[in-house]
C-alpha cells in the first residue's frame, strides 16, 4: 500500500515536470512547421518558474473565488493525477474513483470561470461565458465517453477501464475515437482556444491574473491537458510491464507532435460553431453509449 502511495507521488513529480516540457515541445514543433527556430524546449518551464517567483496582484476587489481559483484548479489537477497511472503503474484507487476524477475536472473549469466573472472585467466575462458554454459541452461529452467505458467494463474503478483489451467492441473503439477528439478540444488547442482568444479578448478568463496567480493558472491548464492525454494513453498502451514508462513517454510525445501539427494548420472557431460541433458529437456519442449498454 505504501508503495502505491509513493509510486503515485513519484508520478505527480513526473507530471509536474512533464506538462510544461511537453508544451515547450509543442511550441518547438509548431515553430519548425512555420519555418521558425522557436524557443528552447524548457521555455514554458522557465516561464512558469519565473511567474511562480513573482508576487501575484489583483486589480480592484475581486471575489474570494477569483483569488483562490488558480490554487483550487491546481490542487484539483494534482489530486486527479493520483488516480491516473502515468509514468509508473501506481495509482490510488477505490470503487467510484472515476466519479471523483470527473468531479475534479468539471469543478476546475467552473471555479476558473466563476472566479473570472467576479472581476467585472468585460474581457474576463466574455471569456468566462465562453468557457462555461464550452466547458458544459466538453464535460457532458467527457461524462458520456467515460460512461461508455464504464458500461463496457461494468466497473466504476478507473484502473479496470485501462487498457481496452480484446475482444474489441464497437462501442469502445468509437468511444476511444471520440475521447481522442475530446482530448484535443479540452486542451484549449486551436481552433478551440476560444475562451482565451488573445487577439479578440486578450486572454479572456485569465486576463486579470499576474505573477504567481497567473503561473498557477497556466500550470493548471497544462496539467489538465496532460491529464486528458494520460487517460487516453492508458486506454491504448499496455500497462503493468517493465516497459510501461517507455510506452507512456513515447505516447505523450507522439500525441504532442500530432496535436501541435493539427493546431498549426487551424484557425480559431467562433464559439457557436464550436458548440454546434460538440452538440453533434455529443448526440453521436450518446448513441454509442446506448450501444455499449446493449452490449455491442
Amino acid at each position: 500500500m505504501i508503495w502505491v502511495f509513493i509510486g503515485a507521488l513519484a508520478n505527480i513529480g513526473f507530471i509536474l515536470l512533464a506538462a510544461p516540457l511537453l508544451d515547450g515541445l509543442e511550441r518547438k514543433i509548431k515553430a519548425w512547421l512555420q519555418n521558425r527556430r522557436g524557443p528552447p524546449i524548457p521555455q514554458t518551464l522557465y516561464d512558469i518558474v519565473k511567474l511562480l517567483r513573482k508576487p501575484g496582484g489583483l486589480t480592484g476587489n475581486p471575489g474570494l473565488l477569483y483569488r483562490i481559483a488558480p490554487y483550487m484548479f491546481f490542487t484539483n489537477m494534482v489530486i486527479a493525477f493520483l488516480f491516473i497511472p502515468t509514468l509508473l503503474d501506481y495509482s490510488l484507487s477505490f470503487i467510484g474513483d472515476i466519479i471523483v476524477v470527473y468531479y475534479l475536472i468539471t469543478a476546475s473549469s467552473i471555479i476558473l470561470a466563476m472566479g473570472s466573472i467576479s472581476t467585472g472585467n468585460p474581457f474576463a466575462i466574455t471569456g468566462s461565458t465562453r468557457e462555461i458554454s464550452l466547458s458544459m459541452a466538453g464535460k457532458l461529452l467527457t461524462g458520456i465517453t467515460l460512461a461508455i467505458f464504464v458500461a463496457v467494463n461494468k466497473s466504476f474503478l478507473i484502473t479496470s477501464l485501462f487498457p481496452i483489451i480484446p475482444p474489441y467492441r464497437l462501442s469502445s473503439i468509437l468511444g476511444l475515437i471520440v475521447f481522442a477528439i475530446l482530448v484535443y478540444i479540452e486542451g484549449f488547442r486551436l481552433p478551440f482556444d476560444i475562451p482565451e482568444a488573445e487577439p479578440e479578448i486578450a486572454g479572456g478568463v485569465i486576463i486579470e491574473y499576474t505573477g504567481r496567480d497567473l503561473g498557477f493558472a497556466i500550470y493548471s491548464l497544462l496539467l489538465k491537458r496532460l491529464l486528458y492525454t494520460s487517460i487516453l494513453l492508458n486506454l491504448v498502451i499496455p500497462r503493468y510491464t517493465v516497459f510501461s514508462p517507455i510506452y507512456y513517454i513515447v505516447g505523450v510525445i507522439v500525441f504532442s507532435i500530432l496535436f501541435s501539427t493539427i493546431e498549426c494548420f487551424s484557425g480559431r472557431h467562433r464559439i457557436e460553431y464550436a458548440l454546434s460541433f460538440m452538440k453533434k458529437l455529443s448526440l453521436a456519442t450518446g448513441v454509442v453509449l446506448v450501444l455499449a449498454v446493449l452490449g455491442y
Partner: protein
Amino acid sequence: MQSSATKLVEELGRFGIVEWIDSHTLIVHVDRSKLRDIAKYLHWGIGGYFSVSIGSDERPLDNSFHVYHVFSLDHLGVYVVVDIRVSPGYLHVPSITPIIPGANWHEREVMDYFGIMFDDHPEPKRLILPYNWPKGVYPLRKDYPYNKKVYIEEASDEPEHDSRFAGKYTIIPIGPYHPALHEPEYFELYVDGERIVGARYKGFMVHRGMEKIAESRMTINQIPFLAERICGICGYTHNVAYCQAVENVAGIDVPERAHYIRSIMLEIERIHSHMLWLGIAFHFLGFDTGFMITWRLREKVMDLAEMLTGNRKTYGLNLIGGVRRDIDLSKALKVKKVLRDLRKDYVDYMEKILGLKEIIYRTRGVGVLDYGEARKYSVLGPTARASGIDTDVRKYHPYAAYRHVDFKIPVYKDGDVLSRILVRHEEIIESINIIEQLLDNLPRTPIMAEEIHVPEHRIGVGVTEAPRGEDIHFVITSRDNKIYRWRPRAPSYNNIPALLVMLKDQHLADAPIIIASIDPCFSCTDHVLIIDVRTGSRKQVGLRELSRRGLG
C-alpha cells in the same frame, strides 16, 4: 474623352466659374447657395465620389477663408475642386454631410481647425481637438504660430460612453492598447452576449500637427521627407502624392525614368503592405502559421526595397522633379529573379491557405459593407473594390508610369471580409506583374528634371493609389520656396467611418478581423469620434451589473 470633358466644363458652368488648374483637375468657384447642388451632382448625379474637404485661411491673400471639396470623376479621369469662399465676418457654409455622409469627418476637421461652421451638419461635434481645448483657438489659422503652446485648464466634458447603449449592454473596450490593434485608438463595442449592437470610435490619438509644421517651417523640398513619415507602412505613397501635387502646379516635366522608378517602388510598397496585412488578418483568425508564412515572404520584398533605396522603409527617394537614386541593370535583374521566386512561393502558399475551411468560414459574409453604404461613405481602395466599386487611381487617373503598363483591377461584389482578402491577394500578384513590365521597359533618361520653378499661390492636387486606397495631397504654393497650405488625406480617413456599419450585428469574435479588414492606418488618419445609429430597445445582458462594476 476630350468632348466629354468639355461637356463636363459646360455642365459645371451652371454652378459657378470653372477653370482648369492642370490637365486633369478642374476648379469650380461656387456660391454657397449652389454648393449642395453641385455636391449632389458630382457624387450622386454623374458617378463621381467625394474625396476630401480642405479648409484654408487665405485672409493674407484675399481676405477670406476658403473651403475646398474635392471630387473624383473616375470615368472622365478628372478631379473637380469645388471652392467656396467664406467671409471672415460670417463663417458659415452649408454642410454637404446630409447629402454625402462620408463628408462628416472632413467638415468637422475644418470646424476644429478653422472655426468655420457647417450649417445643418448632423453631428457638429469636435473631431480632432480634445473637448477641453479652449474655445476660439483654431490651430491651422495663419495667425496662430506653430510653436505656440496652449494650456488646457478645464476638465473635459466629453461623454464617457454612448448613452444609448451604456448601462444596457456589456461594454467591451478595444483600445487604446489592445492585442488586436497595432496603433493607439479606441473602439468601444456594446455587446449583447456575443453580438455587437453598437460601436463608438475615438481616434486621433497620434496627431502630430504635420500640416502646421510643413506650412510654417519647412521648404518645398523638405516636405517630401516629412510626408513619408505620415505612415510607417505606406509612407512612400504620401511622398509621391505630395511631389506630384507640386509638380502638377509647376508643370514640371518629370523624366520618364523617374516615373518608372517611382512606380516600381510604389508597387514594392503595395506588395509588402498587403503581405503584412494578410499576415495580421490570419493572426486575428487564429491561424498563426499563415501569419508566419506571409511575413517570411514579405521579408524578401523588404530586402528588395533595401537594395533599391538603402532602406527597408521610409525610402527618402523623391524630390520635386524626380528621384534621387537610379536602378542599374544588375539590380533590375536581381529584383526580377526575387519576384519570380516570390510569385511562385506566394501563389503556392495562398492556394493552400485559402482552401482552409476555417478561414473561409470566419470571413465569408462577415463585416459586410454593401455597394450603397460603400458609396455613401466614399470608401476607397480594396475596401471599395470588395464592395463592387470599380475604382483605382492607377487606372482612372494614371500617374507616374502606370499608363505604360497593363494590369487588372480585382473587383468583388460581396463586400465581406473574404472579398477584401481576395482583392488584396490578387493585387499582390498584379503588382509583381507591374514591376516586371516596368523593369523590362525602363527608359534611358535622366532621373531628375532640370528646370524647376514653382509659381506662387496656386492650387495643386496630387493623387496616388496607396495600398489602402486613394491617397490625395492638396497643396497651395507660396513664395520663398514654401507651401502655403498642405492637406494630405490618407485613405483610412474615408474607410474608418464605414467600420461602424460593418461591425453592427456581428459577432464579438469577428470584431478584430472586421476592424483589420479595411487595413486601417490610424497614424495616417490621425484623428476621430463617431457613433453608430441604432433604434429600439433590447433585452438586457445578464452580466451587465458585473461589467459595469468593472468599468466603474
